[in-house]
């Protein structure tokens, strides 16, 4: 297990290194920091002096080392627009995005396992066919269309739910603004969460169903029937446990995908999260903020993937020995 852990951490570090290189390359080539600092009305000589002072004439490696060193201390530059440290700007937006992902995850996990298992156990029932039919339609509707459709239906037409923003938030531990603290906040997070879950949920139902059906065909499940065990024990202990192993791996990747989809959902619902902020930063060519977003999102990807791999290693007894013995 220890070797496995070290190997995974090493890989995570390598990926973070590549991300930092890309981020630096973007920072180096995108926009002109001088113009952002002093504007256009400065003489060429002063510019050269400043350039030298800021170290912009140093070699690529020296500049990267400086960039990486600062980044490790949490300094990702100052946002041109907000005139604040870029990391602070992002961390302020982070709770909104994470709560959206949380809301969607609750919906996905809460519904996909029972529905996936049911459709695998009773593949020919009318309910299963209805679930599978709806799920393939769900996969075919892009997240932003689901979001628009819901706004049109529940906000414009029926006026049940608010169409944009976070509404009232309550502060937790000082800085974390949460939607789950007030009725208004909850009302605001319902539609964005459903929209974000809308494409992932059918994917998970179908994944769990197909994995479960394959497991139900396996020899050990047949053997479990031959031992006279109860159907519940066979489905939920023998089959589900083996079904969830591959689902965990895919699930980890999908968490990352969900971060990407938050950009879409946040845009439609004008949800003040990281994704919405990122698109604004792109339009303003706010390079430090773009770079900071890249690093923070890259970090989230790497951390979730590493955690998922470690969980997989803990849950699956065959991984432990294979890696330990090696």
């Amino acid at each position, binding site marked *: 297990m220890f070797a496995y852990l070290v190997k995974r951490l090493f*890989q995570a570090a390598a*990926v973070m290194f590549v991300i930092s290189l890309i981020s630096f390359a*973007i920072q180096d*080539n*995108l*926009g002109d920091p001088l113009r952002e600092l002093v504007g256009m009305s400065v003489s060429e000589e002063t510019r050269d002096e400043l350039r030298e002072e800021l170290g912009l004439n140093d070699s690529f490696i020296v500049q990267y080392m400086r960039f990486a060193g600062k980044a490790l201390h949490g300094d990702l530059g100052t946002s041109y627009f907000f005139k604040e440290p870029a990391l602070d700007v992002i961390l302020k937006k982070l709770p909104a995005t994470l709560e959206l992902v949380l809301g969607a995850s609750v919906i996905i996990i809460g519904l996909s396992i029972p529905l996936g298992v049911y459709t695998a156990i009773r593949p020919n029932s009318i309910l299963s066919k209805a679930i599978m039919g709806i799920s*393939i*339609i769900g*996969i*075919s*509707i*892009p*997240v*932003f*269309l689901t979001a*628009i*459709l819901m*706004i*049109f239906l529940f906000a*414009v037409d029926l006026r049940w739910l608010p169409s944009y923003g976070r509404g009232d938030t309550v502060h937790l531990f000082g800085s974390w603004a949460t939607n789950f603290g007030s009725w208004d906040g909850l009302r605001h997070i319902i539609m964005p969460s459903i929209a974000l879950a809308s494409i992932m949920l059918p994917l998970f139902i179908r994944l769990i169903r197909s994995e479960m059906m394959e497991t139900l*065909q396996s020899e050990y499940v047949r053997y479990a029937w031959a031992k006279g065990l109860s159907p519940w024990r066979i489905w939920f202990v023998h089959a589900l446990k083996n079904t969830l192993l591959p689902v965990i791996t895919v699930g*980890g*990747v999908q968490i*990352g*995908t969900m*971060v*990407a*989809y938050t*950009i*879409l959902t946040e*845009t*439609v619902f004008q949800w003040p999260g990281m994704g919405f902020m*990122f*698109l604004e930063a*792109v339009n303003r*060519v706010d*390079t430090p903020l*773009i770079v900071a977003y*890249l690093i923070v*999102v890259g970090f989230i*990807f790497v951390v979730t*993937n590493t955690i998922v791999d470690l969980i997989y290693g803990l849950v699956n007894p065959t991984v432990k020995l294979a890696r330990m013995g090696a």
Partner: protein
Amino acid sequence: MSSFVAQAQQSRWARIKGSNLVYDFMHNPVAIVSFIIFATIVIATMFSPLIAPFDPYDPTQYDIMDSELPPSWELAGDSKFLLGTDAQGRDLWSAILYGTRVSILIGICAVALQAFLGISIGLIAGYIGGRVDSLLMRLADIQLSFSTLMVAIIFLAVTQAMFGTEAFNRYALYMLIGVIGIAEWPQYARTVRATVLAEKKKEYVDAARALGFGPLRIMLRHILPNSISPIFVISTVQVANAIISEASLSFLGLGMPVSQPSLGSLISSGFDYIFSGSWWITAIPGIVLVVLVLVINLLGDWLRDVLNPKLYKG
């Protein structure tokens, strides 16, 4: 027990050609309807310059005075514009025909690129094996762990910020194909590699090698045909995904410009107007997009069911 050994011994290609596929198709109403709809959409978009009453790419052909006209069946509609007009006064029916063409073009080209990259890498990894293999598969793992959409959004956003919107719009089509095409190769690579590893052990590959055939010939002529059906199934789903990705990117303003709209950019351009009641600019292209993706997904599901029939054991 393997009572269907004979069936398994047939080559996969023979199984595709064999009546199973055709037979099942003829007995599956969902597949037939999906195929008819898909074929209609493809043919209509291929001939869109002939069918469309207006050229949506030509600004002289539309008038801002005609903007936001509802579909012709609505009270305020104009019979000249079957599905109404968008915010710039463009005929929506023509714009949808051209837009669907752009969406399908990007979808298919991007998947062709994915398949080319993935198959090549898969063949190389599987055939050479060893360090090259583990390095390439490690890369595939890492590439897979990053969502395509995320990579595409960041890449396109940064390019747009770097080169300005105008230059970006000029090359948007190629950049979309490139970014969607490059990000999704691991799927193919893994599948092909698995086939290569399975086939490499078999005698006929040894025989071909003994006969002095080069590795390229062995891979392309002997091993690749064995992975045709999984490639086929993956490709269908990937085209659907690529069309959705393209639409999502265009919706964010990171894809096709409004002057050469795809379905995604049409939906996006209409989004600002749904609150004022002009639902059709978003809704009609939206419906076309969903139907297009849905029939491709249905065909993909059907193909997967038919091409990977469960051989029973026992």
